[in-house]
C-alpha cells in the first residue's frame, strides 16, 4: 500500500499557509469561491478608503500650503501711533525695542505714497523709508542695509520700466535703482511688490510712522504684542498694535473644521461599505450553513469557525484598504503635480498618518461588518445548521 510512486501533495504556498495560518488559508479559499461578490464587497471598502485618503490628504496639503503662504503674517507685529497721531516718539520706539528684545527684530518704518516716474512710465507707489529692507520684508534677496538710492519692488519696476542702475523720479528727486526685489509671495500688509524703498532721511517727516517687529515665531509675536501694549498702553492708548497671530489661528481652526467635515463625509461612505460587508457575510454564512455545521460536528471549535469567518471579512478590508489608500494617495499626488499645490505640502507626516489611518479604519469596518454574521454562524448549534 505504501506505494512510493504515488506523489504526496507537494509542499507549496498553500501547504505552508495551511500549516501556519489555517483560518487564513480557509478564508482565502472561501473568498475565491465567490470572486464577484468578494470583489464587490472589496470595491465598497476601496471607495470608502479612497474617499477618506483623498479628502484627508488633500485637506492636509491645502492647509499646509496655505499656512506656508500665510506663515510670515503670524510672525509680524505692526505698531502705529494711536488716534491719528503722526509718528512714534523715540520713547515709544525704545519701549518697543525692549518689548521685542529676545523675541525678534524691530524695524522702524516711515511710509507714504507718491507718484514715481521712470523711463517706462509713471505709477503711484507705496513709499517705505527704512535702512533694513531685508528684515522688513523677511526676504533674503532684499538688501540687508540700505543707505542710498532706491530699492524697487518687482511690480513697480515693471510699470516704471527700470532695471538696476536706472534712475527714477520720486517727488522731484532722482534716485538710482540699487536693487529690485521680487515679492516673496508671503502674505502681509507690508509688501514689496509695488513699493519703492528709500533711506529714511529722504522723508520730510522726522518721526517714524510705524514700527514693524519680525518676531521669531508666532508665540514670540504674541508676547511682543502683549509687551508693547503693557508698556505703552497701560494708562493711555498711545499706540495701536496689529498682530495677525490670532487671525492665523482662526484660519488654522477653520481648516481643521473643514478637514474634519470632509473626513466625516468620506467616513460615511466607509460605513456604508461596512454595511455591505455585513450583508455579504450574512449571505455567505447562510449559504454555507451546512458546511459550518459539519465543521462544528467534526470537532472545529466555535472560536475557530469565528476566526475563519472573520479572516474572510478582514481580508476584504485589507485588500480594499490597501487599494483605496494607494489610489487615494496617487490621486492627491496627481493633483499636486498638475496644480500649484506644492508636492512638499503633500509629503508630510500627517498624510502618512491619514493613509495608514484610513487603511486601518477600512479593516476595522470590514471586521465589525463581519462580526455579527460570523458570530451567528459559529454559535448556531450544529444540529440546526446540518438540518440545512
Amino acid at each position, binding site marked *: *500500500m*505504501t*506505494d512510493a510512486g*504515488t506523489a*504526496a*501533495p507537494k509542499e507549496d504556498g498553500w*501547504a505552508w499557509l*495551511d*500549516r501556519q495560518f*489555517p*483560518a487564513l488559508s*480557509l478564508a482565502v*479559499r*472561501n473568498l*475565491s*469561491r465567490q470572486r464577484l461578490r468578494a470583489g464587490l464587497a472589496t470595491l465598497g471598502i476601496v471607495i470608502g478608503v479612497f474617499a477618506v485618503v483623498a479628502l484627508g490628504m488633500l485637506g492636509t496639503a491645502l492647509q499646509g500650503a496655505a499656512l506656508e503662504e500665510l506663515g510670515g503674517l503670524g510672525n509680524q507685529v505692526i505698531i502705529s501711533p494711536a488716534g491719528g497721531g503722526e509718528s512714534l516718539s523715540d520713547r515709544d520706539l525704545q519701549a518697543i525695542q525692549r518689548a521685542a528684545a529676545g523675541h525678534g527684530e524691530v524695524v522702524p518704518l516711515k511710509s507714504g505714497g507718491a507718484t514715481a516716474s521712470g523711463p517706462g512710465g509713471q505709477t503711484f507707489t507705496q513709499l517705505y523709508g527704512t535702512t533694513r529692507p531685508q528684515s522688513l520684508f523677511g526676504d533674503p534677496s532684499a538688501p540687508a542695509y540700505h543707505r542710498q538710492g532706491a530699492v524697487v519692488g518687482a511690480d513697480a519696476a515693471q510699470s516704471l520700466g527700470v532695471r538696476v542702475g536706472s534712475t527714477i523720479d520720486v517727488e522731484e528727486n532722482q534716485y538710482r535703482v540699487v536693487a529690485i526685489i521680487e515679492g516673496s509671495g508671503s502674505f502681509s500688509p507690508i509688501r514689496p511688490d509695488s513699493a519703492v524703498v528709500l533711506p529714511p532721511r529722504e522723508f520730510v517727516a522726522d518721526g517714524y510712522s510705524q514700527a514693524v517687529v519680525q518676531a521669531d515665531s508666532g508665540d514670540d509675536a504674541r508676547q511682543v504684542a502683549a509687551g508693547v501694549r503693557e508698556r505703552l498702553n497701560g494708562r493711555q492708548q498711545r499706540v495701536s498694535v496689529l498682530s495677525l497671530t490670532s487671525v492665523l489661528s482662526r484660519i488654522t481652526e477653520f481648516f481643521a473644521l473643514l478637514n474634519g467635515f470632509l473626513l466625516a463625509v468620506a467616513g460615511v461612505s466607509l460605513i456604508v461599505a461596512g454595511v455591505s460587508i455585513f450583508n455579504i457575510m450574512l449571505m455567505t454564512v447562510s449559504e454555507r450553513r*451546512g*458546511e459550518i*455545521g*459539519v*465543521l*462544528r*460536528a*467534526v*470537532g*472545529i*471549535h*466555535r472560536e*475557530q469557525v469565528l476566526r475563519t469567518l472573520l479572516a474572510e471579512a478582514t481580508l476584504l478590508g485589507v485588500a480594499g484598504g490597501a487599494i483605496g489608500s494607494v489610489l487615494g494617495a496617487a490621486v492627491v499626488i496627481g493633483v499636486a503635480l498638475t496644480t500649484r499645490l506644492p508636492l512638499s505640502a503633500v509629503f508630510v507626516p500627517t498624510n502618512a498618518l491619514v493613509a495608514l489611518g484610513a487603511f486601518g479604519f477600512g479593516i476595522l469596518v470590514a471586521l465589525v461588518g463581519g462580526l455579527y454574521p460570523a458570530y451567528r454562524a459559529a454559535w448556531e*448549534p*450544529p*444540529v440546526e445548521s*446540518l438540518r440545512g
Partner: protein
Amino acid sequence: MSGTEGPTGPENAGGKMNESPPPLQLSNVTKRYEGGGGTVTALKDVSFAVTRGDVTAIVGPSGSGKSTMLNMLGLLDDPTTGGIELSGEPVAGLSEHERTDIRRERIGFVFQDFHLIPTLSAARNVRLPTTFLERDYTDRAIDLLRRVGLGDRLEHTPDELSGGQKQRVAIARSLINEPDVLLADEPTGNLDRDTGVSVLEEIRTIADGGVGVVAVTHDELVTEFADRTVELTDGVLRD
C-alpha cells in the same frame, strides 16, 4: 464499571479489561421538543450501547427519531432526561468546548450528502477535523485515502469526484482521528447499489478494526451488512 472508579480516572485506553465499558452509551434517554403544535417526543426512554467491532443499523420510518438519536450519540444534542456516557463517563455537564474536543478525538461522522468542502482537495478535506491542530495529519490523510481506494485522487476537489468517491473521502475524513465510534447518517442514501456495496464493505472493514459503527438508514442493504439492526418507531427502540 468497577474498574474505572475515580471521577478523573484516566482513559482506559491502556488497560485492556475484559469488561471495558461501551465506548458510547445512551441510558434511558428521552428527548422532547417544544414546537408550535405542542410538545413532540422524539425519543422515549431509549437505552442503547455502541459495541466495538459491530455495525449497528438503526432503521425506522421518517420522523421516528433516528436523526435525533444519532445527534445524541454524536454529542450534538442534549437529552431532556436520561444520560449519555462515553466509555462509562457521563457527558452531562461538559461544556460545548469539551464536547467539541470529544467529537474531534473520539467520534467520526459520515453524512448522507457527504458534506465535503468544495474548495478543498480530497486530502485536505480528509484532514479538515485536524485543521487547527499542531500536528500535521497530511500523511495519515493520504494513507486513509489509499485505504479507501482513492490514492490517485488526492488532489481532486469534490466536484471532480463521483458520488461513491465523495462518500469514501467522507469516510476517510471520519477516520482521521482514529475514532472509537463511527456515526453514519444514511451512508448509502445518495449512492447506487454497487457503489453502496463498496462503501459498506469499507465500513465493514473499519468495524473489523475495532470501531463501533452506528448507521441510521432506510436502506435494506445496510441492514444486510449490519451485525445488529434495531428499529425505532415513534421514538421507541426495539431490537
